[in-house]
């Protein structure tokens, strides 16, 4: 009886390990493959008799050198960072006061308005890119990064406002009431009392917005055509792919470098995003 129980237990543990291992491999394999490909010589990559999991020739940094010196990759990273910083700034300026107002100042309307704003996050670029393309052309912003700075807050502001609303609601309002009795105005209490203890929430919004900017593909592809003005997520798939000859080593290096660092930072904030995503379905 005891052995039967132990065997069942052993089987369950084995199944658990197998499931976790299978899913982890599925999720992470493309990134592992990018990393391996980055350091392999082209002659090694392009030899079909070679086992692709092994290095048959010494590893090389040539692909990374090509990526940074012979392509516009560095420029794309800088463009992405510039757009990211500006969009984050705009998002904070618009979403922090709005989130606070929805949490504290708008009463019963706040909740409904908040859900309304959240729903605009669902309106996808593929529905708006055609009219916005025309608007961007009309404003003479096509082929510049400013077109992205103008349009990207349309998907960072709604969700950030929603996240911050939840965050501010969780702060006990006694804190501001006490501050206001001490002579602060509502605005003063918000700036001096609420903001400092909301750093974690604001940081969450910063990371979330920056990641969305890095991921955006459709608008950048639509609004911009010169290679020097692209962001990383569009530059790599459109300009590093030369006709039928792909520079796989450099291509994979470019993908890996732009994906993994931001993912590690994001990982620390996931639980907060999820609290926002679940629209209150999880208590």
């Amino acid at each position, binding site marked *: 009886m005891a052995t039967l129980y132990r065997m069942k237990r052993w089987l369950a543990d084995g199944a658990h390990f197998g499931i976790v291992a299978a899913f982890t491999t599925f999720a992470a394999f493309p990134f592992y493959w990018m990393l391996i490909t980055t350091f392999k010589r082209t002659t090694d990559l392009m030899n079909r008799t070679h086992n692709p999991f092994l290095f048959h020739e010494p590893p090389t940094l040539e692909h990374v050198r090509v990526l940074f010196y012979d392509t516009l990759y560095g420029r794309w990273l800088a463009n992405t960072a510039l757009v990211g910083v500006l969009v984050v700034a705009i998002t904070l300026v618009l979403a922090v006061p709005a989130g606070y107002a929805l949490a504290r100042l708008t009463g019963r309307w706040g909740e409904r308005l908040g859900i309304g704003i959240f729903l605009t996050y669902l309106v996808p670029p593929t529905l708006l890119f055609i009219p916005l393309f025309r608007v961007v052309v009309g404003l003479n912003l096509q082929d510049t990064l400013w077109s992205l700075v103008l349009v990207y807050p349309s998907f960072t502001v709604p969700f950030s406002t929603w996240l911050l609303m939840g965050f501010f609601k969780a702060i006990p309002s006694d804190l501001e009431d006490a501050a206001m*009795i001490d002579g602060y105005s509502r605005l003063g209490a918000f700036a001096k009392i609420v903001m400092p203890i909301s750093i974690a929430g604001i940081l969450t919004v910063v990371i979330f917005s920056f990641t969305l900017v890095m991921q955006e593909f459709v608008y950048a*592809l639509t609004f911009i055509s010169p290679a020097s003005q692209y962001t990383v997520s569009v530059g790599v798939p459109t300009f590093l792919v030369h006709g039928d000859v792909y520079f796989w080593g450099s291509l994979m290096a470019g993908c890996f470098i732009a994906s993994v660092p931001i993912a590690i930072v994001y990982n620390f904030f996931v639980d907060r995003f999820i609290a926002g995503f679940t629209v209150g379905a999880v208590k």
Partner: protein
Amino acid sequence: MEAVKGEARVLLGAPATRFSYLRDREEWLGPLMLGPAILYIILVVGFPFFLALYYSVSDITLGSRSLGFVGLKNFTSVIQTTKFKTSLQNTFVFAIVSQILVLVLGNVLALALQKDFRGKWLVRLLILLPWVAPISLGTIGWLWIVDSIYSVINWTLRALGIFGPKTWPIWLGVPHLAMGTVITVQVWRLLPLATVIILAGLSSIPRDIHDAAAMDGAGFWRHYFQVTMPLLLPVSMVALLFGLVFTFTDMTVIYVLTRGGPYDTTQVLASLAFFTGVAGGDLAEGAAISLFLFPLLLAAAIGFLRIARRSEVV
């Protein structure tokens, strides 16, 4: 309360200027703080949306300045093309198949991750990678994995003896295989989001409910189907709605992998709208195509509202 605050200020001797008076008027302050965000959303989401509606009944192209009204001509002419019909069908196959897979696999993975084990933080990080990394870049990783000549999948399966010497599938070159590959990559990308949402739902189920079920002698399957799954329903709905919206309306995976090919067998409405409206310059017809996505969004919005309302009551 307002009066008390005002009095307190007078007692404390704080200067009662007109500005500080305004700062205390909360019925003004609220709209003032909310205004800029709402205004921005109206200008950059609301206005273009109505512009899209207008374009779809006009004859606008990228080159011309004309904006003549043509009624429903764009819609009727679009609907008749085979390109549109296949795209519509592909959109549904792509979205529904991938989201069923995401929901089932997400539940399995969330259950497996609920247990504590060594190295769980690393596993969680790796599993989240596909969701966080820029989609277009992750998809290029797949483009290399399913390469027509150097595919590592084909190499491995041949080395294992599963593929004979003559079998070497071109994953993106054959209609059904291409659709399968595109769906797989979409599942890969959205599985992390569904998993963490469901995981959040799992951890919110009170411990004593599980204890009570165990006490009553429920086995693993019975416990899952009769206790856990019903409690996970609302949160699974949230995961499904996000997945559907992100799949019905996205074209990134398809654009990078197949550009809608071979022979439009992976063309979806979003990518067709791009190729018609932006690459082809026919803004009016492109706008008409992308507006077919709207009913779905409306349905998703209603779904979210219902979930939000229910959670408010509880």
